[in-house]
C-alpha cells in the first residue's frame, strides 16, 4: 500500500540517506531504526508528505502521494516530536478541536470514552498545562484512538510514557494493525510489539 523507491534526503549540505526503498502493506508495521542523526525523523516527515524527498518517489495505493494530496492526508495520521496538544485547552477540547481540524466532528461520548481509556477520567476539564508530562502524552494517545486513519506515522511515540501507558500504546498499535491498518514508527527503546518489519536508515 505504501511504497517508496530510491528515496534520498539532503539536510543542509549533508546527505542523510539515499537509495532507500520500502514497502508496507495492510496489517504490517515498520520499525525505522538508525543512529541519532541518521535521518529517521526526516524519513518519517518525507513519508508524511511534510517535506519533499531530494530524489525518489512515494506511492500510496499505487498513486504518487504528490498527486493524491488531500486524499492521502485523509488516510494519514502523523505524530511528530511535538504532539500538537494545546496547553491552554483541556484534554476534552484538545480532542474535539483536533478532530475538527481533520475535517470531522467527534461526538461527546466517544471523546470522553477515549479519555477514560487512557486514565484521564476526572481530568477532562483541567487545562493541559496543569497535567504531568506523562498525562500530556496520554492526551495524544487518546487522539490516536479516536482518529480514523489507515496509515499511522509515529515519531518516538513511546517517549515519556510510563509502563502502563506503553502497554496501552502497544495495544492500540496491535489493534490498529490487526484491523488492516499500517503503522510506521521510530523508537530508541525496545518495542513490545510482535512481528514488525525493520528498516535501517543511514549511510
Amino acid at each position, binding site marked *: 500500500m505504501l511504497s517508496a523507491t530510491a528515496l534520498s534526503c539532503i539536510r543542509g549540505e549533508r546527505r542523510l540517506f539515499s537509495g532507500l526503498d520500502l514497502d508496507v502493506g495492510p496489517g504490517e508495521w515498520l520499525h525505522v531504526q538508525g543512529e541519532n542523526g541518521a535521518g529517521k525523523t526526516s524519513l518519517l516527515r518525507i513519508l508524511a508528505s511534510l517535506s519533499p524527498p531530494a530524489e525518489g518517489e512515494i506511492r500510496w495505493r499505487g498513486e504518487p502521494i504528490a498527486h493524491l494530496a*488531500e486524499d492521502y492526508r485523509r488516510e494519514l495520521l502523523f505524530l511528530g516530536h511535538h504532539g500538537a496538544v494545546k496547553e491552554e485547552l483541556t484534554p476534552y477540547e484538545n480532542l474535539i478541536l483536533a478532530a475538527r481540524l481533520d475535517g470531522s466532528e467527534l461526538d461527546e461520548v466517544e471523546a470522553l470514552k477515549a479519555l477514560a481509556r487512557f486514565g484521564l477520567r476526572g481530568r477532562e476539564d483541567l487545562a493541559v498545562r496543569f497535567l504531568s508530562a506523562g498525562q500530556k502524552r496520554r492526551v495524544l494517545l487518546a487522539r490516536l484512538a479516536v482518529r480514523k486513519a489507515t496509515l499511522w506515522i509515529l515519531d518516538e511515540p513511546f517517549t515519556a510514557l510510563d509502563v502502563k501507558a506503553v502497554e496501552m500504546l502497544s495495544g492500540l498499535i496491535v489493534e490498529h494493525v490487526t484491523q488492516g491498518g499500517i503503522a510506521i514508527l521510530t523508537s530508541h527503546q525496545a518495542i513490545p510489539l510482535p512481528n514488525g518489519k525493520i528498516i535501517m536508515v543511514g549511510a
Partner: protein
Amino acid sequence: MNATLAPILAIIRRDLLLAMRRKSEVLTALFFFIIVVSLFPLGIGPETALLRKIAPGVIWVAALLATMLGLARLFAPDHADGTLEQMVLSPSPLGLLITGKIAAHWITTGLPLVLLAPVLGIQFDLDGGALGIMVVALLLGTPLLSLIGAIGAALTLGLRGGGVLLSLLVLPLYVPALIFGAGAVEAHISGLGAGGHLSLLAALLALAVFFAPWATTAALRIAIE
C-alpha cells in the same frame, strides 16, 4: 455546512477560544494602542487645531504598531507545539485554515482597535463625521494589516531575531494602507470627500484577500519543510 466555510470557522473558533484563555496578549496590544495614541498630545502640546490635524495619522500609525505586536505570535505557538504540522497534514486545504487564522487574528487585534478608535478620536477633538469615516477606514484597513502581516509572520517563522526582522519586512508594505487610511479622514476634514480613499482601500483589501493567504501558505510550507 459549506465545505469551504467549515474549516475556516473551525480555526476561528479554536483561535478565539485560545485568545480567551490567554487574554493578556490581546489586552496588551489594546493598551499599547491606547497609550501610544495618548502620548502624542503630551509630546506635541494640547492645541486643538493641531491635534485634529494629526489625529488620523497618529491613530493609524499606532494601529500599525499595535498590529505588529501580536504578529510574531500568529504562527509561533502553533509551530512550536506541532499544530502547524497537523494543519499542513489536514485534509482541509491549508489555504483555508490559514485564512481562518488570519481572520481570528483580525478579530482579536484589529476589531478591538476599530471599536476603540472613536473614543481616542474624541480625545483629539474629531467631529462625528470624521469619526465615522475613521471607523470605516479602519474597518477596511485593519484586515489588510492582518493579511499582509501574516505573510511576514510566516516568512520569519522560527528565525533568530524574527520579531525585528518581521517589522522590517512588513512595515514598508503597510505604507499604502497607512496613506489611504489616514488620508480618508484628512480628505473628509478638508472637505474633499473620503470616497476615493475608501474605495482604494477596499480594492487593496480585495487584492490582499485573494493574494495574501496564498503567499502565507507557501511561506509556511517552506518554514515547516
